[in-house]
């Protein structure tokens, strides 16, 4: 098929598009919800102050200009005039303040958005088009965060409603509106906002959206989603099962677009603080003794790129030079394990030391497994057996899982953390993010002052080159410490009919529909 991003012909206004996603949301209001998909659901309705392009640069949107104070603590914005919410309210500085305050208010129980502006100190309204946001500590990741849907701007009058109401209905200034709102297990329908005239700087056109109707449906079963697309019942789907990608590409009238997600890959993390992986040689053996890259290419039929570092190559600041360290070398792995004293073998061929089997405890949430991660776990288990390591994939329920992780009772943990900025590294390897009773994101328990210093310095500068240098150093240190087993780079695989044109991806690899149109 031909690429839908490449515009062929002139966009046509009108028509409706139905898009099916694989995961259900939990709450439409992105201020509250942590779910990726809720960002997708709310994006057509909500605009942000700024927009972010794939290369990490910030562009205007509802704010036309901005500046950062020298101490990196205060951000000043000049707002676009003449913007109205779809309920008729005017967008102004007070609205910005109301939104940011709403995000951090405890009653909102924000599970993600508030975390991205954790050191938020307050907002000052200078006049209707000028506003200042202050922080307690420097936060260079603020502008990229601000560009995400999680900090999207909602109509101030709606923010006073109970949080529960916002979970189904939100009002914004965006190119689409939804009167029916989001309904669990079903999805959401949108209508075009004809008055829209303040497209982000990253968009391909201005004015109202092309599509007059948009609906996003929730279809978790891979086979159903795929079948519904190929049988023409819907126009586009998220997460084409990798097994079907080649098939779909070869089907006339259909096409697949891929967008690699930035941030942390889907990675396995060793617990470096205790257990078998406290020994760096064992970690290294695990990294080198398993042919991660072949497993990933095979399992995902080449549709997901094997990861070769703590970050996704799609992240700004990705350091390519570390990739060599992640090559497969079984002989070296066996030598390392022998050196580490795991020289015995038991009846099933696993290595032992002092009679104890070399067991890696891996609590694995099977019920939440997406993208055949359970199959992947089986294969990694089988591959580890080849070098004499037993990976024990337990399947606890979420509570037991959280308790285990909180207490550090595991040797191996897996998760993905997609963020548009390299600040994801801080989340994943910053000492302060290690699990302390509750869930933490630094699952490897990495605790290296040099790495932490890189992070603090990077937060305090908005100079992208400087940042890249600091994050590059961190990536090297993390690789040297064997604090991560990179698995795959998540590719947003969007399958669609070739009639669907110009679906764009925002930097976090979510599709946006403002520029999209449908060939009649």
């Amino acid at each position, binding site marked *: 098929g031909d690429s839908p991003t490449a515009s062929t012909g002139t966009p046509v206004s009108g028509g409706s598009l139905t898009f099916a996603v694989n995961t259900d949301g939990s709450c439409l209001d992105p201020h509250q919800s942590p779910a990726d998909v809720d960002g997708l659901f709310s994006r057509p309705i909500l605009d942000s102050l700024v927009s972010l392009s794939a290369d990490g640069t910030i562009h205007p949107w509802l704010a036309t200009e901005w500046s950062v104070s020298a101490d990196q603590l205060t951000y000043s914005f000049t707002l676009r005039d003449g913007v109205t919410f779809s309920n008729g309210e005017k967008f102004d500085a007070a609205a910005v303040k109301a939104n940011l305050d709403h995000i951090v208010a405890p009653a909102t129980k924000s599970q993600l958005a508030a975390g991205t502006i954790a050191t938020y100190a307050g907002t000052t309204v200078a006049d209707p088009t000028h506003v200042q946001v202050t922080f307690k500590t420097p936060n260079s990741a603020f502008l990229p965060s601000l560009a995400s849907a999680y900090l999207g701007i909602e109509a101030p009058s709606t923010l006073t409603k109970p949080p529960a109401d916002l979970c189904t209905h939100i009002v914004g200034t965006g190119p689409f509106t939804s009167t029916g709102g989001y309904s669990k297990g079903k999805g959401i329908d949108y209508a075009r906002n004809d008055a829209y005239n303040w497209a982000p700087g990253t968009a391909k056109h201005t004015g109202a959206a092309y599509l007059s109707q948009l609906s996003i449906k929730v279809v978790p079963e891979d*086979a159903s989603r795929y079948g519904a697309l190929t049988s023409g019942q819907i126009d586009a789907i998220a997460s084409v099962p990798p*097994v079907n990608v080649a098939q779909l590409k070869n089907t006339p009238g259909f096409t697949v677009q891929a967008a690699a997600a930035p941030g942390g890959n889907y990675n396995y993390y060793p617990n470096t603080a205790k257990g078998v992986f406290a020994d760096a040689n064992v970690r290294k053996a695990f990294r080198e003794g398993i042919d991660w890259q072949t*497993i990933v290419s*095979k*399992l995902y039929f080449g549709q997901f790129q094997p990861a070769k570092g703590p970050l996704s190559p799609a992240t700004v600041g990705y350091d390519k030079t570390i990739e060599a360290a992640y090559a497969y070398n079984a002989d070296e792995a066996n030598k390392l394990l022998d050196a580490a004293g795991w020289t015995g073998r038991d009846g099933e061929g696993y290595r032992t030391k002092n009679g104890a089997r070399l067991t890696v405890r891996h609590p694995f949430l099977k019920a939440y497994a997406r993208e055949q991660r359970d199959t992947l776990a*089986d294969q990694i288990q089988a591959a580890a057996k080849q070098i004499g390591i037993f990976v024990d994939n337990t*399947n*606890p*329920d979420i509570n037991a899982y959280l308790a285990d992780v909180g207490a550090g009772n595991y040797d191996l943990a897996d998760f993905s953390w997609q963020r548009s900025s390299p600040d994801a590294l801080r989340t994943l390897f910053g000492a302060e993010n290690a699990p302390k009773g509750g869930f933490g994101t630094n699952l490897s328990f990495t605790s290296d002052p040099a790495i932490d210093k890189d992070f603090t310095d990077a937060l305090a500068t908005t100079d992208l080159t400087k940042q890249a240098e600091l994050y590059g150093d961190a990536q090297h240190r993390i690789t040297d410490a064997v604090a991560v087993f990179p698995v795959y780079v998540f590719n947003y695989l969007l399958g669609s009919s070739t009639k669907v044109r110009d679906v764009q991806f925002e930097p976090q690899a979510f599709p946006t529909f403002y520029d999209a149109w449908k060939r009649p």
Partner: protein
Amino acid sequence: MRSRPGVVLSFVFLFVLALAAIWPHLFSATDPNAADIQSTLSPPSGQHWFGTDQNGRDIYARVVTGVRLSLLIGVTASALALIAGSAIGVLAAQGGRVLNTVVNRLLDIFLSIPGLLLVLLVIAVLGPGVRNSIIGLALVTTPGYARVVRGEVIRIRGAAYLEAAKALGWSRPQIVLRHLVPNALGPVLVLATIGIGAAISIGSSLSFLGLGPQAPTAEWGAMLSSSRDYFTVAWWPAIFPGLAITATVLAITVAGQFLQLRVEGRSQA
């Protein structure tokens, strides 16, 4: 039996299943968990009779190895439920008014919560896995058995042969054990044969919901459940475990119905 090839076939099939459950290597020498990443999802062939799955494992070997666990879940859960249900049922029917009412209400409460929901609750409390699936399945099916046993006991209670036994000089507990319980169990055993099938089927639903036996254990429900992602490109990972489940349940049902007729002395008629 001679005139019914279906019955003979069922017994032969069950016999083969039993063999496979005890000595799986009689039927397949291949390691059911040997993943071969180079030959995933290859269709049935001389080398892999039922083809391979997404991990390149031999489906035939997995179906054979799966016999043990799949039967274990169905049979053990049904057996546990049968024993517990019978005890409760007899107790309720033979006990005093108060006991009867209390047990009855309790049964009602458990019956009013849909089975799968209750299993999910049990698994939420105990955690997923084979053992807990069995416990959950047994727990949810127990009230049903108890109800039926209780009904049977109440029906039989007035039977003339119980009075005859009393006239012969048996004591009450002796009558209950010798005559009442064995006779009340008849219809329940039929229920149990259906129950084994149902348990295997619910078990596979649990796998579908991600709560069944854990990988890489070969279990039919789990195999069936994981096959669904590949259904559009490969039919064999879905068809063979599905056939295994269906054939097993069919054989158990046919054999069960035949045995019931035998017990009731009707096959001679």
